[in-house]
């Protein structure tokens, strides 16, 4: 079992790290205070990142991406975690892998423009009355002579103000339950599509989260993504890797970022005539962060390795989703504690990291949902889920 990184992997990480430090980190405070990333700045970081070959690296080479392995993707995504959601979206793109279900002419119209950064897509599954229970959605697509007619509403659609099309889940066969749901590619400009309000959040400043309303939106057969009735299955198959990257790996990166600031502060802040890093109660927090971050990273990389081996990594990804998100939560909480009043004060970014971290336990499946998945799997598959020798 070789855990070492290749030169190429190290270089990739260094390039991303340098780019984030020099071009993205300086924008963070401005986004936080203004509430948005100025369009010309978004364009500038996109352009530079694209020149570095860092845009849409998760997409296979045949569609214009970099075709990175899952392991390499996670190494990059961990570095992405050092900056904020909106800056990651604009600099590195957020091309959902479910778009790889595009066929024929759909590839040119929806997939490739996302890889080149000419178009941006958001994913719209959640509805006010259907969150964890994604099969309980009410948005309905009915067959017409030439295609489909879509009606219903969504909310919490990340980056919805900026995106120009949406991947929307809708019921196509009401009697078939979770097998009666399909995915549609819906242009924002289509008649009948209304973007509602930007739902203000606790953190993730700069990224919009919107309501969407569909009022008898006429769609052609070309707007159906993947197979009819397999919408939830397509999501399940493809969202795992996104989850591993955007929650698992990024949580590890964020935790590293915060831990580094925390250790630095502990070594400089003096009370009672010594640095607070000399107090054992502070040292325990330092140690726990380091232990938990390393454990979470190993979980991320082993799940990624399993994907690269062609195995079904869904159970592993659920474990990562819970563990990495909760590790980040504990790490930022300890950081606030070690920084004391300055951890709570808006003069330092610690309180922002604390706010930004909280969503990790909620989106992309709550901790409870993933624990339920893991419990069910363990009950069904037994020792294989935790005992290597079994």
């Amino acid at each position: 079992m070789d855990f070492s990184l290749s030169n190429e992997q190290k270089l990739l990480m260094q390039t991303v790290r340098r780019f984030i430090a020099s071009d993205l980190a300086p924008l963070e405070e401005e986004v936080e205070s203004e509430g948005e990333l100025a369009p010309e700045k978004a364009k500038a970081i996109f352009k530079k990142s694209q020149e570095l070959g860092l845009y849409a690296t998760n997409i296979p080479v045949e569609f214009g991406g970099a075709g990175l392995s899952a392991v390499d993707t996670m190494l990059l995504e961990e570095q992405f975690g050092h900056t904020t959601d909106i800056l990651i979206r604009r600099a590195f793109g957020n091309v959902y892998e479910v778009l790889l279900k595009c066929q024929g002419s759909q590839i040119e119209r929806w997939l490739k423009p996302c890889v080149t950064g000419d178009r941006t897509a958001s994913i719209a599954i959640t509805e006010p009355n259907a969150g964890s229970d994604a099969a309980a959605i009410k948005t309905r697509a009915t067959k017409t002579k030439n295609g489909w007619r879509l009606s219903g509403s969504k909310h919490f659609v990340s980056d919805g103000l900026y995106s120009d099309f949406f991947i929307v889940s809708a019921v196509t066969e009401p009697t078939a339950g979770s097998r009666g749901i399909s995915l549609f590619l819906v242009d924002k400009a289509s008649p009948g599509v209304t973007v509602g309000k930007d739902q203000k959040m606790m953190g993730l400043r700069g990224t919009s989260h919107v309501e969407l309303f569909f009022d008898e939106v006429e769609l052609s057969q070309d707007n159906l993504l993947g197979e009819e009735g397999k919408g939830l299955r397509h999501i399940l198959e493809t969202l795992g890797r996104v989850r591993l990257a955007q929650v698992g790996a990024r949580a590890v990166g964020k935790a590293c970022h915060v831990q580094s600031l925390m250790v630095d502060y502990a070594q400089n802040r003096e009370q009672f005539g010594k640095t607070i890093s000399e107090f054992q109660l502070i040292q325990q927090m330092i140690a726990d962060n380091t232990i938990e971050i390393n454990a979470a990273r190993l979980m991320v990389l082993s799940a990624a390795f399993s994907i690269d081996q062609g195995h079904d990594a869904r159970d592993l990804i659920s474990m990562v989703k819970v563990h990495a998100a909760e590790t980040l939560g504990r790490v930022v909480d300890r950081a606030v504690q070690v920084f004391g009043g300055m951890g709570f004060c808006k003069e330092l970014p610690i309180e922002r990291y604390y706010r930004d971290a909280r969503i990790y336990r909620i989106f992309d499946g709550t901790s409870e949902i993933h624990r339920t998945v893991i419990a069910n799997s363990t009950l069904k598959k037994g020792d294989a889920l935790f005992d290597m020798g079994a």
Partner: protein
Amino acid sequence: MKIISIIKQVPDAEARIRATASGIDLEGVTFVIDGMDEYGVEQSLRLRETGLDAELISIALGPKRFEEAIRTSLAMGSDRAIHIETDEALDPITQAKVLANIIKEEGAELVFVGGKEADWDSAALGPAVAEALGWPHSDWTTKLVVSGSSLSVTHDSDEGSETLTLPLPAVVTTQQGLNEPRYPTLPNIMKAKRKELKKLALSDVGSPSGKTQLLRQEIQTKSRLNKVLTGDAAEAAKELARLLHEEAKVI
């Protein structure tokens, strides 16, 4: 034309360096290509991008770990590399002799060397390479244009900056201001994997023996003696001269 960039790997500027009784403890330290050397690699890339027909070669002399710095230069865009692998700590003059042999063998016409090593803080390697080759040399170079068989350079001098014309072949030592080195792009990082990295041992280049020996390493510290000279000016000046001569031994 062949252009050679001499490169080195050094501890990252943010690395925490510890000194122990047995020397500098580099355990756990992150190493990077010396920033000064990146200017040379970058400049060679720019020369080619502005139309010069050139082959770009990186050469490094040092331990195995230097490989990473070499790969960085290949990922930035150099065509191939030569690594003379050794764990011996050679002084700059000895290094220069080894490097000069390879530079001659390759038939290079332009050599870039970082202005000052980030680890040893030595600025000797560039001039020493020029000396060993018997080539003209521009130090602390901030601007460079190749025209035909000559080189126009602007470099810092004690009085400010001057612009000179040198015939090729020549050695140029770089510094901040010459350019803004690029980061390796993802496609180039992937391509670098397949570029040639030739390995040589010190015995392949004549087993040079250094004139210096590394005895001890410690972290440099600065401290003040806080000595105040009293008495009238003439007497204080005399005392100062005596102290500088006898105690500090600087005059």
